[in-house]
């Protein structure tokens, strides 16, 4: 339904997207996940025909977004990031305009249906400019689904909503996604595992992973993160730990309680068990191993691993209770 191949977008010298490829099947909800500025919005703007790519191509429902822009636009519903709406219009008048612009037949019924589906029917005659952020978001959604498009492109559909509205909106997207293809962007991880069939993780304009939410979780199922507290010179200890086989990443944090005591967070590569080798290395060097805990990586940790390219040397660990349980899952 959606095919993106080798998409590159440059703004002057700045590369926003670099060789991005992914696809979405009919009836699939695809999540574009990535930190702010990763290129999610640029991808969506290209898919909707708002701007052309610098190179590469994208096809929606079999039509090229550049050469067959009109055919693509007839088949999509788009919710841009900041929900730009005509604030001087009433909800009904605005949706009526969208219905005309999209050449919807049976305009009145369609507008009523969309207001109903997006739960703005009781605000039909309110002026958009006076609506809360949550209601504007719903009007934006109503606008996107209005012409019953085959493809929905939603840029951060739950941004700025309160928890109840987020749940409602996710339910709405899920129900809409049954017959349609949906691409949505988000930087909220649980959202992806809750509503998406598949996830494409974008970082700095490049695809760093493409998988199902379960697949992503499985990827890290064996992987563990080790938290240790050690008395000794932190730089030397960090270097020693990084040199160990099976260690993917080491984060150093100050303050394990006491002078010369530091905390380290160590990520293992794959499902390597690094506990014993870490412990013996520290003891062999004559440093004081004060605490060691291991816990499995969460989806958040995977996301961080994939999207932070350089190792963060300094981090402030959350205060840990002195007598922490040994195993945390």
């Amino acid at each position: 339904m959606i095919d993106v191949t080798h998409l590159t977008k440059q703004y002057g010298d700045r590369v926003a997207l670099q060789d991005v490829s992914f696809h979405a099947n009919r009836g699939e909800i695809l999540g574009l996940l990535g930190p702010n500025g990763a290129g999610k919005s640029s991808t969506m703007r290209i898919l909707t025909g708002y701007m052309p790519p610098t190179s590469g191509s994208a096809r929606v429902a079999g039509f090229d977004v550049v050469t067959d822009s009109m055919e693509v636009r007839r088949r999509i519903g788009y919710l841009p990031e900041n929900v730009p709406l005509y604030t001087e219009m009433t909800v009904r008048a605005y949706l009526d305009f969208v219905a005309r612009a999209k050449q919807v037949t049976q305009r009145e019924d369609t507008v009523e249906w969309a207001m109903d589906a997006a739960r703005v029917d009781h605000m039909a005659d309110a002026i958009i400019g006076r609506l809360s952020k949550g209601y504007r978001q719903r009007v934006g959604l109503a606008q996107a689904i209005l012409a019953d498009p085959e493809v929905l492109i939603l840029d951060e559909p739950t941004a700025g909503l309160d928890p109840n509205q987020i749940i409602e909106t996710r339910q709405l997207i899920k129900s809409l996604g049954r017959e349609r293809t949906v691409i949505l962007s988000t930087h909220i991880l649980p959202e992806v595992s809750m509503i998406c069939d598949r996830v494409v993780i974008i970082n700095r304009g490049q695809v760093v992973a493409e998988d199902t939410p379960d697949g992503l979780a499985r990827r890290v199922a064996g992987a563990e993160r080790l938290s240790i507290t050690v008395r000794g010179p932190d730089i030397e200890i960090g270097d020693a730990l990084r040199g160990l086989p099976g260690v993917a990443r080491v984060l150093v944090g100050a303050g394990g309680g006491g002078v010369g005591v530091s905390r380290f967070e160590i990520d293992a590569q794959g499902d390597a068990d690094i506990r014993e080798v870490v412990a013996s290395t520290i003891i062999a060097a004559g440093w004081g191993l004060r605490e060691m805990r291991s816990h499995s990586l969460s989806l958040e940790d995977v996301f961080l691993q994939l999207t932070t390219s350089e190792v963060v040397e300094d981090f402030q660990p959350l205060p840990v209770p002195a007598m922490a349980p040994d195993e945390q899952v």
Partner: protein
Amino acid sequence: MSSIPGSIARHWIGTWAVSRRELYAYLVSPMAYAVASVFLLVNGFIFFLILAQGFAEANLKAILPTTAFLLLLVIPVLTMRLVAEERSTGTIELLMTFPLSDAQVVVGKFLATLIAYALMLVPTLAYVMIIVIYGATEWGPIMSAYIGLLLLGGAFISLGLFASSLTRNQIVAAILGIGLLLMLWVLGSGASVLGPRLSPIVGYLSLAEHFQNFGLGVLEVKDIVYYLSVMAGCLFLTTRVLESGRWRA
């Protein structure tokens, strides 16, 4: 492929959708009423001055140059929001991903403003009534004056729309629009100093030059063609600006 009338009808539906929305925006915006009020107040006062001086002709000839100059100042204020506002609020992103061509968007916005402008001219029919009451009326010059006002206004609107497409700042759009119009207005006065070769060309380009005949009741093809080509040219340029905006987005 569908028939030609069918495709024209479909184009028209989209264009009219844009026009309707713009008219809605004019109807609920205080700016449109402010512009119309200022225009009608100043124009009406000058019409009163002309009458008070004992103007004898039963047509609108005396007031027309004033009206035209006032329009030059107020129409860019009417057109400044057309594209600039959509750029600054971001609504242009949705508009340009609807199944509407850039030309439909531009023509739709132009037509809406032309209609709003025509509505603004309706109260000036009071002048005509006054003339009718006080004397035998020359309907020809009055008709041609209104045709001229519509053509002149259309040209002003298309240029204002073009100015609005160049920026996201409405004030800049208005100043740019007034500046461009003023320049084209005074071009005629420059004709005399530019020598025999340039002066006819520059004179032809002047917005003011072509307006004179309409007040006299003379409809000349070259004047009508001039205004229509200004409109076509500006609408075409605006379409290209929107198009190139996609590449720079």
